[in-house]
């Protein structure tokens, strides 16, 4: 089930109403059943993977906690890691692995052939795998007590608003909220409603309407001139932002309706004045996951410069790979790693860009960062390296080409509105920003958003981009 679907718009009120009608001790059962139903709507068979992952993590964490010997603890941790990452590897990375393996074998003149597995990538596998791993790792590091209640643990793994595309929550933040007997609150309802309509607006009106234009230029970049390609790349920057930000916003809004506060996943990332700032504002739950479970264990920044640079590069390359099993994602991640390192030692050391206060320097930084991020998206969006290179080639060479690319003026209007709202929301969340505005302005904004959603949403099938991860 997707958030921008009629079944979800029926499902959500039923879940919310039932949640508050039920006695608190029964609520977890209803939420768990609803979450499984939500997931099975897409592909019932793959619920087995979630159940398996739930059981492995639940019992491994108990075993880790029960044993006092570090060796025994490690054994269970490895079992858990191998199982979780093994499933992820088979479903997500096996294709890339076989391709690389056979390529290397060919170089050495060996005709190696590995079996081809035609497996459908389970929706959200990277999200729930990382969420459950964070829990088990915390138990191993002694930061977290193992959950005694299998039902609540299963609910933590599958809580429907954030199951398939995050935010990747931590156990100590989410589980206590799932156990709290929330009462219906007007504030939660109104904030949840605001976030849901805002999320639907940016997904359905911005992302879904930009998608066909982006698809057009990516399918044949050679046919478009440099100016239009640049506009198309800018469109993709907003498409992916609106798509993922929209999803996260609806997730946060839906959870809020039952009193659960999920973490913010985006904070106006295109207003970042540096790559470092960008990653503090973009997909925050993933960035913090990599910070806590990869970067810090590698030594973080309390190491020599060269080691730090390696750490940064590893973190960003892994983050690229997390997104997908393709060389394009690897390069995309590496670009950010490299830019992060360059930025620190050339920009910040010589004080070229001030990232603190708004001014000429910051605006310049925002523009530079946006251009770098937009160019990096070329690797993210392209299906192969050769496609990405074709795009760069067309960008540089097609200066004189004429083409009939004419975006719909209504779409440009809605995109303009979204950009203005994004500027106004700097360091703020839509619901909180909205609550401080006068009544007439609030309702004007609601009316505009509702009109956009109902009358101008994209009509082509555009699944959430991050579902594939």
């Amino acid at each position, binding site marked *: 089930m997707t958030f921008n679907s009629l079944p979800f718009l029926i499902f959500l009120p039923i879940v919310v109403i039932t949640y508050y009608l039920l006695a608190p001790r029964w609520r977890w059962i209803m939420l768990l059943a609803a979450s499984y139903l939500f997931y099975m709507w897409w592909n019932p068979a793959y619920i087995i993977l979630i159940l398996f992952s739930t059981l492995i993590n639940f019992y491994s964490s108990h075993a880790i906690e029960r044993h006092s010997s570090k060796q025994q603890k490690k054994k269970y941790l490895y079992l858990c890691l191998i199982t979780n990452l093994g499933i992820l590897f088979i479903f997500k990375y096996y294709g890339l692995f076989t391709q690389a393996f056979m390529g290397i074998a060919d170089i050495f003149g060996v005709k190696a052939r590995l079996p081809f597995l035609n497996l459908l990538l389970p929706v959200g596998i990277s999200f729930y795998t990382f969420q459950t791993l964070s829990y088990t790792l915390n138990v191993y590091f002694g930061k977290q007590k193992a959950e005694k209640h299998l039902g609540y643990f299963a609910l933590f793994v599958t809580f429907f608003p954030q199951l398939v595309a995050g935010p990747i929550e931590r156990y100590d933040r989410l589980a206590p909220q799932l156990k709290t007997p929330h009462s219906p609150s007007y504030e939660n309802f109104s904030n949840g409603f605001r976030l849901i309509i805002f999320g639907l607006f940016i997904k359905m009106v911005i992302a879904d309407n930009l998608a066909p234009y982006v698809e057009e230029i990516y399918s044949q970049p050679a046919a478009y001139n440099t100016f239009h390609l640049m506009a198309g790349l800018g469109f993709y920057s907003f498409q992916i932002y609106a798509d993922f930000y929209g999803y996260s916003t609806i997730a946060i809004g839906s959870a809020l309706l039952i009193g659960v506060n999920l973490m913010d996943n985006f904070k106006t990332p295109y207003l970042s004045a540096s790559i470092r700032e960008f990653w503090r504002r973009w997909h925050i739950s993933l960035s913090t996951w990599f910070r806590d479970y990869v970067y810090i264990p590698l030594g973080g920044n309390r190491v020599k410069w060269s080691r730090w640079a390696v750490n940064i590069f590893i973190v960003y390359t892994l983050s690229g790979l997390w997104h997908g099993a393709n060389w394009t994602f690897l390069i995309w991640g590496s670009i950010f790693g490299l830019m992060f390192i360059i930025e620190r030692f050339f920009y910040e050391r010589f004080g070229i860009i001030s990232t603190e206060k708004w001014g000429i320097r910051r605006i310049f930084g925002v523009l530079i960062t946006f251009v770098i991020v937009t160019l990096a998206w070329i690797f993210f969006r392209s299906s192969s390296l050769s496609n990405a290179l074709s795009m760069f080639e067309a960008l540089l060479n097609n200066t004189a080409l004429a083409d009939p690319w004419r975006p719909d003026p209504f779409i440009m209007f809605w995109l303009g509105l979204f950009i203005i709202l994004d500027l106004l929301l700097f360091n703020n969340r839509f619901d909180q920003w909205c609550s401080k505005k006068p009544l007439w302005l609030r309702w004007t904004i*609601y009316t505009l958003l509702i009109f956009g959603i*109902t009358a101008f949403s994209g009509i082509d099938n555009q699944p959430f981009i991050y579902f594939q991860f």
Partner: protein
Amino acid sequence: MKPLAAKILPRLFILAIIAFLLNWIYTVEFYPRDLKKIDLLDSLQKVIPQSDVIYFGESSNFSFIYEDYDQRRISDFITDYFPGLQVGTVNKGALHAGIYLRLLQQIPPEAPVKTIIITMNLRSFSADWIYSKLENVLQRDMVLISDGPPLWNRFRLGLKAYDNKTSMQRSLQVKYALKTQALPVDPPCNFPNAAAWIETIKKSPTYPLIDDSVAKALAVSFVVNYGFQIDTMDNPRIHDFDDIVKYAHQRGWQVILNILPENTKLSSALLGPCLKKLMMSNAELLTKRYESQGAIVVNNLELVDSSHFSDKKWPTEHYDEYGRKMVARQIALSMKNLYPNYFSDVFMKSYFTCDYETPSPFFLTLRKDSTCSRSGKFAERLDTNNAFGARFVRHYYEVKTLNPQKITASGWFTGNYQPKDVKLIISIEDDKKQSKLWTASVSKDMENGKWASLQVSATIPENFGPNDVIKVYFWYTGKNSVWIDDVNITLQTENLNTESDTISSLIEN
């Protein structure tokens, strides 16, 4: 709970008022614009005000063959039989009765439509079509014309709230249907269902009966597409056609159902008599069912020979020019009694004219030009880019009933030219593209800048046969532009003087 309800309910009420107002704004300002974006609805809106007859079809209506002289659609060929009658066309690939019904419901009461011709594709009754992944797009196109407030329908479009399934879901539906839809067991046809039949094809070394690289895949495709017995209780297409006939009667329209030709010959060659038997029994069922409901059913199932199907590697209803013309003829003949005053048998037609003003369907590749004209406003310009004028083409099968002995062509031209550069040509071409030519060219004393005419006649050879074709056209090899107008062609049935096969004349205007 009470204070909460007191806060929420007034806001819900305000939201309802906003929704009502937004629906009004959308309906007035944006709905017509959205309708125009859906090509199917847009084309329907365009044909409604001027059509006496509307032809609803899918891809069978089009030409997929580059070599066809006449690339026009079946529906256009029907028009040739009824000069003066307006035949509109609404077609798109993969359309089916469910969609036709929704489109018919869009025709307003004041529309001049009196007859509807509906394509009845046997394959559209199969699970493979019913659960086709193309269905998503068709259903999407229909959302805006569903019942309910337009804004709600537009919202549904954004939510993809229609029959919108993934390819995997659709393929599972097809597989299930192939396994569960029972087939009549009638020796030697002993397959309980299509899935079992397909399994036999895949496993057997001697079945299908043709042994070549594509035969197995082709045989499987045939069974998937036609290996079913129409269940009148459960098949959704039956319900759609029932509704179409009923609806048409309510509106006072004549309904013509056109059962399309299928490649029964190839199916028999591959699979023996079983599949053809099924196809025929399904076609008979449909004919009986809908004739009893008052529709005119044209059963063309075996009308077109295998060689006239354009796709050789999978079964489709895509025909070459001959196939499309034959289907059109059968439909036209079935309409003869409905429009006796308009009917003109194309195969008996002996006089053809092209004045560049009125429609001249028998002249192909016609390009109008308004720079100058002999009659009316238009003529055709010939120059270095366009060396050939509108081409008249007549196949053997189109003239054999008339059985002409002679053809005469004449046409007018003007411009600044060299005499040797302008020619009016009659060509009779056989299946090996060998031509026999009769040419009329300009005499030297002709005055440039004035309208003049050329005329040429030819005796049609006695061995003029099934694969031969008559062509008439102007050919210009000069550099300056010339214009041609008022081309007339006569097929003469009586045996006239054939002493001179080539006549060239110059008539001062």
